[in-house]
């Protein structure tokens, strides 16, 4: 435990060193990157080693702070998240060596590495904290560093705006958490996790946790910060935020559930309901986005929704003591946490590579990149396929597990609860289909066709340090899909220790899960083999024929231009029209009316419904109230002093009255 703390400290120190050496760009960058890469790899090795030993580590000593001891510990639940965090961070660190090279960001090198290392260190601290105060401090550092990272490019207005929205959301979340921990600590005023004895009804605590952690996780009503902050952050930071940081919300919910005893049925129902809203709502918004990274951010919310559905089903099973529903539901959620981390970070890194090469994230300015950046395009394809849960890839397995748990639930659970699970199954299916549409748009518009602007003309594949992390992630996406039967013991062990289940129960469930899962694996492997066979056969046939290159079908136009291609708006238009009541789509269509075509255009616009109809009016009201006080802050020092003087005098006279 001391070794782990030492390495976390080292990570933090290397960040600080890098910050203070910011004048010397090279050195600062080297210290920051080497520090983070080396310490993160050591920590990763340590935590994998810990996990295989099946032993919990704890450490507790008194410190100069109130409310309990400096208590840290590692159990499989922490370790599960730690391994994901460290792995993604390691790849992101590699990626950022050239993505954030000192030549590119100049003076901000030091700040970047300081913030990056602090972010990773604080995330690990959140995961190993076993004291409420320590947890909150780490949580707050973890929440604050992204604010600076999002606004790293601070001469961009959108980045500043996004950072502030993020900051507000993060602070609201922290407020709920503070309340939660105070209530958990109870009268004893001891915030050590081991001494938590909730004195009030656990339902209230669950709701508080759901809101507080849900803001970080990005459940749909609380998601506003996510599609603002993720696109503006540097891409590897978006990858960390999306793949790891929002999962901290899930970790928090899980950790709190362990304190609250046996869950009630409505907890599971609530979680499933949130999951349904998040997944379906977010994927609809995702479809309408023009910004590649914003689309990915919405897709993150969708996947968090899927995880929530899995957790909800698990909780339902737990509250009715149906262990198979519980274990399979949680297993699905845990697997999806891993899988989403892998594929979403792959996609974000890819989007970063595209942005790096072309300087734009707007899909309408991209196109035709597949010829310029073949590797990136191929990797993006893999990422897309894996995130929409297509069989050979990883997310398929986790969604399959969630479906499996749902059907188990429908069969076993009481009638009232099955309705919500049936809705969940339906919405999962809908989400799957919509995300297929969404990502085929993202891939098709960005990479296929012709260049829509000269920005994508000069694109090229990124350097090796950027490419290799993506390749590693892509390979893992495939491995986690194909070799699922060997991987499930990792989350199963986590579930066992988190909820104190019998090892026999787990092994019994495992054999039951393995039956369909190994069948799936066999089918997948044979499918892959079959497709390779087909590919080579086709290649052989093709080699014999003569190959000629020409334009794609040009609708009979004599001189087709790049602007005549499908745009993302027109691609998605039929689906948007279908969901118009929810999305409130605004279209602007100038069709062709004459025989001889003149200029015509089609535009499609959507707003985030929650932002537009809930948050904006809410904050408008707020600012309306607080604007009354604005004239007080006029910037004249004399009057500020006058305030102090008059307060003093009033107090004096009030006292001797």
């Amino acid at each position, binding site marked *: 435990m001391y070794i782990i703390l030492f390495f976390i400290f080292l990570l933090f120190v290397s960040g600080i060193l890098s910050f203070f050496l910011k004048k010397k760009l090279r050195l600062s960058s080297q210290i920051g990157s080497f520090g983070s890469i080396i310490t993160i790899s050591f920590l990763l090795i340590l935590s994998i080693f810990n996990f295989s030993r099946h032993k919990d580590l704890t450490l507790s000593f008194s410190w100069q702070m109130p409310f309990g001891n400096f208590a840290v510990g590692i159990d499989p639940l922490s370790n599960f998240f730690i391994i994901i965090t460290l792995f993604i961070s390691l790849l992101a660190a590699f990626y950022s060596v050239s993505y954030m090279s000192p030549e590119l960001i100049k003076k901000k090198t030091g700040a970047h590495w300081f913030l990056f290392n602090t972010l990773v260190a604080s995330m690990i601290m959140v995961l190993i904290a076993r004291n409420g105060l320590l947890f909150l401090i780490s949580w707050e550092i973890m929440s604050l560093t992204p604010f600076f990272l999002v606004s790293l490019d601070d001469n961009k207005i959108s980045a500043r705006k996004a950072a502030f929205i993020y900051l507000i959301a993060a602070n609201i979340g922290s407020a709920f958490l503070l309340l939660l921990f105070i209530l958990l600590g109870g009268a004893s005023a001891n915030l050590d996790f081991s001494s938590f004895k909730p004195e009030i009804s656990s339902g209230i605590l669950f709701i508080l946790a759901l809101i507080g952690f849900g803001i970080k996780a990005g459940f749909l009503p609380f998601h506003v910060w996510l599609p603002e902050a993720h696109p503006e952050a540097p891409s590897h930071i978006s990858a960390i935020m999306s793949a790891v940081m929002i999962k901290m919300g899930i970790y928090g919910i899980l950790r709190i559930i362990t304190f609250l005893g046996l869950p009630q049925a409505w907890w599971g129902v609530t979680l499933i309901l949130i999951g349904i809203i998040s997944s379906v709502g977010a994927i609809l918004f995702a479809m309408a986005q023009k910004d590649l990274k914003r689309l990915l951010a919405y897709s993150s919310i969708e996947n968090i929704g899927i995880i929530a559905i899995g957790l909800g089903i698990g909780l339902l099973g737990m509250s009715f003591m149906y262990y198979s529903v519980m274990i399979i539901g949680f297993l699905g959620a845990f697997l999806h946490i891993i899988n989403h981390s892998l594929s979403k970070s792959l996609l974000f890194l890819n989007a970063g590579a595209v942005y790096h090469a072309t300087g734009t994230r707007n899909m309408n300015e991209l196109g035709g990149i597949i010829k310029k950046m073949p590797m990136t395009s191929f990797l993006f394809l893999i990422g897309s396929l894996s995130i929409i849960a297509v069989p050979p890839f990883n997310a398929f397995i986790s969604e399959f597990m969630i479906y499996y748990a749902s059907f188990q639930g429908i069969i076993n659970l009481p009638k009232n609860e099955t309705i919500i699970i049936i809705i969940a199954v339906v919405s999962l299916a809908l989400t799957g289909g919509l995300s297929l549409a969404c990502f085929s748009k993202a891939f098709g518009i960005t990479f296929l066709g012709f260049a829509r602007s000269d920005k994508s003309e000069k694109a090229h594949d990124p350097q090796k340090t950027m490419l290799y992390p993506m390749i590693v992630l892509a390979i893992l996406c495939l491995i986690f899909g194909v070799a699922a039967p060997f991987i499930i013991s990792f989350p199963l062990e986590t579930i066992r220790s988190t909820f104190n289940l019998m090892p026999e129960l787990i092994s019994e469930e495992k054999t039951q899960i393995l039956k369909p899962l190994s069948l799936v694996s066999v089918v997948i492997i044979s499918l892959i083999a079959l497709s390779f066979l087909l590919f080579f056969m086709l290649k052989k046939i093709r080699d014999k024929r003569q190959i000629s290159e020409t334009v794609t079908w040009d609708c009979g136009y004599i001189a087709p231009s790049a602007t005549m291609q499908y745009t993302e708006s027109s691609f998605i238009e039929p689906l948007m029209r279908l969901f118009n009541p929810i999305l409130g789509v605004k279209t602007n269509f100038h069709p062709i009316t004459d025989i001889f075509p003149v200029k015509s255009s089609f535009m499609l616009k959507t707003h985030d419904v929650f932002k537009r109809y809930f948050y904006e009016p809410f904050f*408008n009201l707020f600012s*309306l109230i607080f*604007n009354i006080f604005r004239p007080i802050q006029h910037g004249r020092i004399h009057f500020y002093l006058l305030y102090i003087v008059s307060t003093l005098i009033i107090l004096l006279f009030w006292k*001797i009255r």
Partner: protein
Amino acid sequence: METYIEIIMIILIICNLWLLAASRIKQCIYLVAFQGAMLGLLPFFQTGHGILPRTFIIVTGITLIKGFVFPILLTKALKDVKVKAEVEPLVSHSVSMIIGIFALIISLWLDERLQLPLTIESELIIPLSYFTIFVGLFLTVTRKKAITQVLGYITLENGIFAFGVSILSEHPWLVEMGILLDVFVAVFIMGIMVFYIEKEFDHIDADKLAHLRDWKIHKNKLFSWDIYHSEAEEESK
């Protein structure tokens, strides 16, 4: 001995009124220094304790710092920044005088109301300290330049010191020394800051620093998500 104290008190009250009326910064600096030195002499005339060695040390220290170090620092700052020699008050000198007289009356009345549980050498010391505090606060609020605000601050501290001297036996000298050190550092830093403000903005007019505030009034739009957007647009224009 009491007569000497009374005389010093009268001198200090006149000093305060003069400060309110003074129109030149240099004059203000000398007045504040004189006031400080006079206050430093006060413990000598307090009977009952005799002159202890520590009293002697502190008296010399205070007289030195308030009477000599501060004026030297401030005149140096004044010379460095090259501003107009006038005080530039927000409230005119005559009105300041009238308010000063009111403050004196209020201080005397306050003394009546607030009966301190101690014996005090002179009846005038407590009202004087209130009066000096009020004058100091008034100076910080109504004088435009940053350097005059420093002077107001020192005057304020003089008032607090006068209060401290009056309850000599109960008041630990250590606290007094702490306050003195505080003020010393404050004057030191303010002197440097005044210099830098002048270097950056070509004036030490604290009134004009108002444009540093971080918000602007949006007449039509109270709040929108694009608030930063519109501001930056204005900047670019």
